[in-house]
């Protein structure tokens, strides 16, 4: 669906994107992950034909972006970073204007977008008076009004409250069942929650490009399990835990009245049944046992650590 070959973009002396190549299949939700200033927005701007790459070729479907930007833009929906909108327009007028420019007949699509993005209640309000969350939704409605094949979202959940984030994520996942979605973010859980695939980008270069679950496994397959019990002290618990097969490390967690330990285990086998049997065998009380998916975060830190140097 989308093929990017060796694109580079420089702004003066700064190389924002350096020789980046990837391809995205139809119906995939791809997360573009990276620290601030990594080149995520620049990459997305080149995909949407807003910027022209200095070198390299982008083709979308069977169209070359350089030859047919207008044709390419017809099948792309784009939500730029922080959803820039006309503040002195009414939401309905704005969507109507976008629909008109895109050649959409009638106002059926606007009504659909109102339902889908939950903006019916603000349809007749001035955009300038809307909260950040509603602005983001209006931006999203704008980007989907023509039912695009490809949806490109630049930090779609930034500035939203936790409920809104979950709503938007659900919406993206829903759309991603039928469409190709590319979203950029610097929030890791977002990628884990929504994306089939992750491209990690750092200082203009791709440092990782794989399926989300593969990347989660890739870091030695290490998992963390948080255990909270009562009925024993920490040394006793630690001694028992480290005796279990597959456990490579135990550390104390002192954030509650209960005796807590974080267990690091290797291998693909789940260590939780072993922990449960051990705890119940000792007649201790198990309050909590939580598998922590921390691997992607570690991958991200390892790959982009140079950015802080």
């Amino acid at each position: 669906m989308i093929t990017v070959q060796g694109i580079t973009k420089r702004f003066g002396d700064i190389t924002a994107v350096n020789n980046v190549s990837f391809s995205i299949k139809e119906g995939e939700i791809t997360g573009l992950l990276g620290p601030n200033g990594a080149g995520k927005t620049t990459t997305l701007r080149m995909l949407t034909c807003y910027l022209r790459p200095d070198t390299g070729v982008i083709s979308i479907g069977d169209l070359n972006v350089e030859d047919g930007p207008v044709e390419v833009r017809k099948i792309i929906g784009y939500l730029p970073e922080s959803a820039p909108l006309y503040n002195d327009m009414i939401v309905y007028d704005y969507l109507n204007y976008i629909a008109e420019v895109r050649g959409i007949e009638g106002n059926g699509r606007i009504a659909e977008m109102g339902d889908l993005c939950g903006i019916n209640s603000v349809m007749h309000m001035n955009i300038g008076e809307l909260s950040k969350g509603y602005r983001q939704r209006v931006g999203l409605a704008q980007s989907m009004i023509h039912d695009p094949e490809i949806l490109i979202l630049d930090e779609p959940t930034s500035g939203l409250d936790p409920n809104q984030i979950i709503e938007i994520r659900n919406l993206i996942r829903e759309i991603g069942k039928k469409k190709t979605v590319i979203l950029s973010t610097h929030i890791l859980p977002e990628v884990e929650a929504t994306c089939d695939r992750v491209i990690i980008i750092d200082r203009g270069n791709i440092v990782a490009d794989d399926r989300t679950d593969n990347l989660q496994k890739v870091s030695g397959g290490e998992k963390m399990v948080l255990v909270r019990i009562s009925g024993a002290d920490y040394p006793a618990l630690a001694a028992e835990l480290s005796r279990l097969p597959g456990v490579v490390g135990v550390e104390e967690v002192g954030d509650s009245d209960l005796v807590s330990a974080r267990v690091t285990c290797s291998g693909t086998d789940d260590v939780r049944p072993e922990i449960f049997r051990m705890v119940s065998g000792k007649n201790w009380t198990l309050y909590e046992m939580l598998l922590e998916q921390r691997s992607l975060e570690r991958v991200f830190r390892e790959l982009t650590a140079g950015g802080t140097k």
Partner: protein
Amino acid sequence: MSILNSSIKNLRSRGAPVEAHVRSFAGNALLYARAPMAIMKKELMAYFFTPIAYIVIIIFLGVTGSFFFQILNGGFFYYNQAEMRSFFQFLPLILTIVVPAITMRLFAEEIHSGTIEVMMTLPVKTADVVVGKFLAATLFTCIMIAPSLIYLVTIIIVGSPDPGPIIGGYLGSILLAGAYSAVGVLASSLSRNQIIAFIGGLASCFSLWLVDKITIFLPARLSFIEFFGTDFHFRNISRGIIDSRDLVYFFSIIVISILVTTKILDDRR
């Protein structure tokens, strides 16, 4: 046109419904103009949703009205002339200030607020965007000038004005509005700051107005410079003489400004 005629003839010989073909041809033309029209409509709406439009119109009518009624020169009735010459005499100068104020926000605001990113990723050609905004500014200026037709009614009541200079004057005003709007749109595309866009537009429009006046200070062989002045061509038209040279001048300014603006916006990529 001959191609169209021959294609209609071909269709006729094959017995196809010509009307449908012509209709779809017109439909395609409309389809092509859809984007600039939508942009024009949006920009016009934006003018009237903000109080700035009404303020500009009121100031414009106040100032031009005072010139029409010759308040500073002893009054309209003192001259006993049924004409609008004094109105059209000062219109070009007033438009050099007012039109840049109308055009300043067209691109500068979009660049400043980032909405240009949405605009330039819509499936429209850059030139269509420029044309849409140019048309909105021109149309707004015409709407602003339109109430001055009341003056015309006044002089028709009190006397019998010569129609030539008045028709020429209004035609010239429309062309002038177009030329200044195109220059103003160009100035607006150069900056993200509306004030700078206004000053740039004002300086350019005012220079175009001034050019034919400085020929007095130049040697006679440089007097051709006056052909570059907007006021020179406007005066010709507002005498009631519609000459192709004046029309070509105004259309050239409009076309060149639109092309340069398109280039500037494309180079931002």
